[in-house]
């Protein structure tokens, strides 16, 4: 029952976070959760926060009163509830994870047992929205149309239903993993095939046959309702990609562009009608399909007059990715208000945080156009299936704002950092005929532009793709401007029109045959400068106090220079594999540290999901692409002090990951100031040649290495330094393609493919050092370094640091190894003259590549000489592990770095240089992958990073910490499981320990031929399984799919064949969502721990571990 109704206010509220970043659940929930915690505490409510993801602002100790970094499971959360006794729980802020967990807690009777009230939207409403049947029933009741559909269990039924509904139909398997087995059937023949697939893919052998609305407009409404029944719309959004492409994978504009007022109000009324029916108390996302325009309709089966104008597709009764986008697109803080509503406040009681004067009970008015483009991971996964459909594949997104759609679109494209740069990009293979098809994939928008460039009319393109002509015509206007820039000479008015259509100086330069810098100069001579306008929720109707700006080329500039002590923080752009939420964490803390030290912070970022782009995180926010042009423009716009004299604000490039670091050189060249390590220092650390010399000079060992431009050289270099070697292209090109290569034949193969990708490129060849990998984050003031702690990887070097499990402290390093690492780190900091953060990866050879951590820790040989420490890489910036290490050591790395940059030495700040004393705790960081969403992608661990997120397990002892890390990352092996092993020949010797441990732990073993032999040789029972899929009897894939085995160990060391052999095993395990270990070390750690201390772990607030 609604709190508003009985005036009850809770004293202590449990907020559930969304856990690790995975595809479909990214940084937006850290943004929402953090905002909500603030909002609750403003009302004097104590907040208990639980999240397994350490790389979040919400798990900072000062965001909530009691922070738990623990696995998000019912038993764990029950223990938290038992300990904290909250009287309320907020379920709607932690994404689907938080929502499901809350429902499970309620079903398990936990909430009732400790009488915890669900705040805001009630469980029953959640059920009504999530359960397809209940939802359907409710909507019928409300008179809102849903697409006709029926659940069937046989192909025969499927055909019958399809006849009633009419072709085409979409087949949506019930409870499939990774949305596999679905599809669109245009006729009975196709349906037979797809339905058969779907039914077998479905765990319950059930598929939903639904009327296909492919080609209809896909529209979203973000709506809110309070306990008193007041309902408002925050924002509506129109997908450029019509129905059929997941909204998370669609280019989205706000507000809708092709709906008349009558259309708009029709859908608005429906959305509000639905949240009233669901009795939502808070935010809600409604997805609708609307009748397509004429051109598109022509290409679809005729739509009868009796058919409704729209269908309701789905409702998410919680804050979502879309609500984060809507918040950033309008300035309306949805999560903040939702939290207040959950406490029983009504919309009219709440002030509009932006204008301060008006109320929260209104609907934002936009006077600009917003464009969101998803960021896909296929640059990392060249082999992945790039086609887009009803299953989301994007890891992140960018947003851009401008006064025209064309400009916003082009700015968003610039923000993507996917190597395309602008709409001018074309795939080499398109050169003559143009793109082979216009099907939805990660290059769709470039394909559309390319097709129009080659003379297809926008209307043709719309008929083929279902994209409304309004959008394709906008693309045509862009292409037309390209043509003008190519043919006409560059006049002032042409330049102005180009800028108003969002053309970058680089684009104009390319087309008008000038250098970007020349274009910039010319532009400035002509006085064509960007102005900055404010996002104020009210289209200028009221004075706003928000410092939230976007650029455009018009008359009036609203962003007067901030003046005074200030610095610019360069953010990290879209979330992608290798550059995740951690860098937003660092950017946010940089902004706060500046404020703490009495200066103002100016944030630049293009990612709408983040805390850094929350309107009150920094003193001023520019929502802009992170490229040279827009950063320099912003610096120049801010470059006067309060008396109007020239006073250029310095930039911080260390916190926004590679994105920000990459801008350092451009800033350097432009002579713009950088705080902390400057451009030359950064270059010294990043440039292989320069760094090698430096390292040699200071006696810091590096792996023997060389470079090669052709196979012959490569064979020679590799021959000299000895196999195995690690090879990688000298510069990034659509996938790093870093590989460990065991033999000359493999080198040749690698070279052939590398040369195909980028002819004439240089290949870097390092000796692959088998050993323990160690990661260090440090802050350096040029004289001294401070090392909060050393992290030891569980997997030996060769598994990317981002995909390794990391343990703090470095439990099985001996004293001299630790000292060497501290010494090298200090030398590097001093030698490079680093000011600020640096991140170094070391590898220690000798003394065994695998060292146990637990009770049965393998003691490592002490005394130098026996083992050797090499430095693998120095990153002159913040890193993925900064949030982790800052949290488990309570040493605020970013704050210290910002102070250092402003001239306060480590000692002045009261810290003792060197390695900080270890805390009496153990913390384990484990990676989390999104492979089930990425069909066709191989999951094996290697030197290329593949994980999308991470979790942390923290406890007094290693056993508890690692157990929780495994649970939270889904790698926990239940007691007495059936485990399938398929071990590469090269690893068999190494695997003996693992096999014994598995048997000892009481697991039953299944194995493929060779592996089974080896196991039998140990005198251990094993079920041999057929490896060849063709083979008779149950195959490896069968026993995975039918659930016989609940964990898989499959290693890949060796040549391509070994790798390919295991591919289907690994994919099957992923689809089935069971642990799949491709590195022996991970598996061994998992088995040993679980055996050692099954379930024996603490559940405590972070503070207790730290103070214990």
């Amino acid at each position, binding site marked *: 029952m609604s709190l508003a109704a009985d005036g009850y206010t809770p004293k202590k509220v449990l907020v559930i976070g969304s856990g690790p970043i995975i595809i479909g659940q990214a940084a937006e929930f850290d943004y929402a959760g953090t905002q909500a915690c603030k909002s609750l505490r403003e009302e004097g409510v104590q907040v208990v926060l639980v999240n397994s993801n350490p790389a979040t602002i919400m798990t900072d100790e000062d965001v909530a009163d009691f922070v738990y970094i623990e696995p998000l499971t019912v038993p764990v959360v029950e223990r938290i509830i038992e300990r904290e006794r909250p009287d309320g729980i907020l379920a709607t802020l932690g994404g689907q994870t938080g929502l499901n967990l809350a429902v499970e807690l309620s079903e398990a009777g936990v909430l009732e047992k400790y009488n915890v009230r669900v705040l805001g939207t009630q469980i029953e409403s959640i059920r009504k929205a999530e359960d397809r049947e209940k939802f359907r029933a409710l909507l019928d009741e409300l008179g809102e149309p849903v697409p006709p559909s029926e659940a069937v269990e046989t192909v025969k039924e499927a055909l019958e239903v399809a006849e009633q509904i009419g072709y085409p139909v979409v087949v949506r398997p019930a409870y499939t993993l990774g949305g596999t087995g679905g599809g669109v059937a245009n006729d009975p023949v196709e349906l037979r095939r797809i339905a058969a697939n779907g039914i077998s893919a479905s765990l319950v052998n059930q598929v939903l046959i639904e009327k296909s609305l492919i080609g209809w407009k896909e529209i979203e409404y973000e709506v809110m309702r309070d306990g008193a029944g007041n309902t408002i719309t925050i924002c509506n959004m129109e997908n450029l990609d019509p129905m059929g492409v997941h909204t998370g994978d669609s280019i989205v504009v706000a507000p809708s562009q*092709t709906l008349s007022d009558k259309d708009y109000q029709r859908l608005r009324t429906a959305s509000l009608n639905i949240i009233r029916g669901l009795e939502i108390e808070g935010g809600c996302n409604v997805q609708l399909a609307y009748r397509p*325009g004429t051109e598109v309709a022509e290409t679809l089966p005729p739509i009868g007059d009796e058919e409704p104008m729209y269908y309701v597709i789905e409702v998410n009764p919680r804050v979502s990715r879309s609500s984060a986008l809507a918040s950033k697109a309008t300035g309306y803080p949805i999560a903040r208000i939702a939290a207040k509503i959950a406490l029983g406040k009504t919309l009219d009681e709440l002030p509009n945080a932006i204008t301060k004067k008006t109320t929260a009970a209104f609907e934002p*008015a936009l*006077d600009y156009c917003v464009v969101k483009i998803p960021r896909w991971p296929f640059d990392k996964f060249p082999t992945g299936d790039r086609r887009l459909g009803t299953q989301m594949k994007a890891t992140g997104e960018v947003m851009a704002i401008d006064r025209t759609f064309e400009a916003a679109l082009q700015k968003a494209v610039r923000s993507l950092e996917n190597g395309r740069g602008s709409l001018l990009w074309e795939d080499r293979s398109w050169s003559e005929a143009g793109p082979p098809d216009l099907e939805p994939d990660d290059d769709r928008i470039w394909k559309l532009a390319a097709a129009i460039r080659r003379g297809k009319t926008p209307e043709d393109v719309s008929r083929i793709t279902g994209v409304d*002509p309004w959008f394709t*015509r906008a693309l045509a206007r862009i292409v037309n401007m390209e043509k003008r820039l190519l043919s006409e000479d560059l006049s002032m008015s042409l330049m102005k029109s180009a800028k108003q259509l969002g053309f970058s100086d680089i684009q104009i330069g390319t087309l008008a045959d000038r250098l970007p810098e020349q274009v910039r100069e010319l532009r400035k001579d002509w006085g064509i400068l960007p102005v900055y*306008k404010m996002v104020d929720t009210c289209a*200028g109707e009221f004075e706003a106090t928000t410092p939230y700006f976007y650029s455009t080329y018009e*008359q009036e500039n609203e962003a007067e220079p901030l003046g005074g002590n200030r610095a610019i923080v360069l953010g990290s752009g879209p979330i992608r594999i290798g550059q995740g939420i951690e860098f937003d964490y660092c950017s946010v803390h940089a902004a706060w540290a500046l404020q703490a030290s009495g200066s103002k912070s100016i944030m630049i970022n293009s990612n709408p999901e983040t805390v850094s782009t929350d309107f009150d995180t920094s003193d001023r926010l520019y929502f802009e692409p992170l490229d040279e042009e827009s950063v320099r423009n912003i610096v120049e716009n801010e470059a006067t002090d309060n008396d109007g004299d020239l006073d250029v604000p310095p930039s911080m490039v260390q916190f926004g990951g590679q994105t920000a670091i990459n801008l350092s050189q451009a800033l350097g060249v432009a002579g713009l100031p950088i705080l902390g390590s400057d451009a030359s220092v950064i270059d010294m650390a990043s440039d292989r040649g320069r760094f090698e010399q430096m390292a040699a000079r200071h006696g810091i060992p590096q792996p023997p290495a060389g470079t090669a431009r052709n196979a012959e050289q490569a064979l020679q270099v590799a021959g000299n330094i000895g196999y195995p070697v690690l090879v990688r292209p000298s510069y990034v090109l659509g996938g790093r393609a870093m590989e460990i290569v065991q033999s000359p034949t493999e080198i040749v193969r690698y070279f052939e493919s590398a040369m195909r990708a980028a002819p004439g490129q240089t290949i870097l060849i390092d000796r692959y050092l088998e050993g323990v990998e160690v990661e260090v984050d440090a802050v350096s003031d040029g004289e001294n370094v401070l090392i909060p702690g050393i992290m030891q990887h569980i997997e030996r070097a060769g598994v990317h640091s981002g995909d390794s499990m990391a343990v703090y402290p470095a439990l099985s390093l001996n004293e001299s190894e630790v000292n060497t690492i501290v010494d090298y780190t200090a030398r590097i900091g001093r030698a490079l003259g680093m000011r600020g953060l640096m991140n170094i990866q070391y590898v220690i050879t000798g003394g065994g590549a695998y060292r146990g951590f637990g009770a049965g820790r393998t003691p490592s040989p002490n005394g130098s000489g026996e083992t050797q420490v090499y430095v693998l890489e120095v990153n002159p910036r913040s890193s993925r592990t900064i949030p982790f290490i800052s949290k488990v050591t309570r040493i605020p790395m970013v704050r210290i770095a910002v102070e250092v940059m402003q001239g306060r030495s480590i000692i002045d700040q009261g810290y003792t240089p060197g390695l900080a004393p270890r805390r009496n705790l153990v913390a384990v960081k484990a990676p989390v992958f999104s492979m089930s969403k990425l069909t066709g992608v191989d999951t094996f661990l290697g030197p290329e990073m593949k994980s999308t997120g991470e979790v942390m397990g923290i406890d007094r002892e290693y056993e508890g910490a690692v157990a929780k890390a495994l649970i939270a990352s889904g790698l926990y092996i239940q007691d007495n499981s059936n485990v399938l092993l398929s071990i590469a020949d090269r690893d068999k010797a190494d695997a003996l320990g693992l096999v014994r441990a598995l048997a000892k732990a009481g697991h039953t073993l299944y194995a493929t031929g060779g592996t089974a032999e080896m196991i039998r040789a140990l005198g251990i029972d094993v079920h041999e399984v057929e490896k060849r899929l063709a083979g008779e009897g149950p195959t490896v894939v069968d026993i995975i799919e039918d659930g016989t085995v609940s964990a898989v160990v499959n290693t890949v060391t060796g040549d391509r064949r070994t790798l390919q052999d295991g591919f289907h095993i690994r994919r099957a395990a992923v689809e089935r969502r069971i642990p799949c270990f491709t590195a022996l070390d991970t598996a061994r750690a998992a088995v040993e721990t679980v055996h050692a201390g099954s379930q024996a772990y603490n559940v405590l607030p972070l503070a207790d571990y730290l103070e214990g």
Partner: protein
Amino acid sequence: MSDQRGDMYLVLEDGSVYPGRRLGAEAEATGEVVFNTSMTGYQEMLTDPSYGGQILVPTYPLIGNYGTNPADVESRQVQVNAFVVRSDCDEPSHPLSEWTIHDYLLHNGIPGVSGVDTRAITRKLRSRGVMMGIVTPRSDPAAALQALSAAPRYGEVDVVDAVSTEQAYEWNGGAPAPISSAARSSATQANEAAGRRLRIVVSDYGVKQNILRCLTKRGCDVTVVPDDASADEILRHRPDGVLLSPGPGDPVFLDSAVETVRGLSGKLPIMGICLGHQVVARAFGANTFKLKFGHRGGNQPVKDMQTGRVYVTAQNHGYAVDSNGLPADLRVSHMNLNDNTVEGLRHANLPIMTIQYHSEASPGPHDSEYLFDRFVEMVREMKDRTSAAASNGGASL
């Protein structure tokens, strides 16, 4: 398109100049410059008579995306004096679209400017208040300013008379069919004999057609009468209720209307919308005043003082009823949450309800259409009571 669109300017009375490209007719027009924050519904706005005498500036920058059509009109013609936008779409995309916004204005002889910084204009009006302006092809601001000062100022002339209907007519959903107030269509006479349908007279101060549609949808026969129709003239239509429509300008000009209301109050249920609401207020002795820059948009929060519920409303007015000095028997039924101005009144003991905002929406949220139900109920009750009284009287004879 053949039409070559040259330079065009908006010049404000404070001398500021906003150069752009011609939109619509090549002509000059003056008027009070006002902004509207709705993101959709430009055609409904253009044809809303309440914009008579004004130059309209939508704050949404992309105008004309879905074109224009014969259906999205609220009156017989485009009513604004001129239209000023950030950009206009000459390739609209919508199944119903027939003309681009440019052609639409062109054929209606309405001038406009496209390509100006409408946010800059909005910010100026917000801080300085609404002001007069001129849309002109002349590149010489001085000349433009002269023409502007020569033109009549908004608020000094009565615009209502210009937008109201010449003579009474019966609304039949389509084109207005003029009638003599005496003879009425046999169909409606039959209806009335059956006593089923309700007859509503709408005083046209600048009525929006959707008000008429909302009434017919609820089973009313609607007769529209000129703004200056007297109480007797209205009563001669034997209505069951009267609706006083919205309209442009300052209510102080509407003395005759005020008289009419005085003549009707107590005799018939009355609903007043926007200007109609202000007329009722004046009729009972309340005062009205000019707002700094008015309320124009589809997102104004209004609180129903009875239920405490908040409604997001469509608004378009530059004047408001003063809450100080309200006569005792007028109760504030609705209030604006942004600036606490009066948004609705209810008479203490007479069947009179008024709202400052637009329950007919079009453009804007449909949340307040329920108010027409309330009005119609009010009318129905009254009718039943009187007819009951009549029949009782008959029986007692």
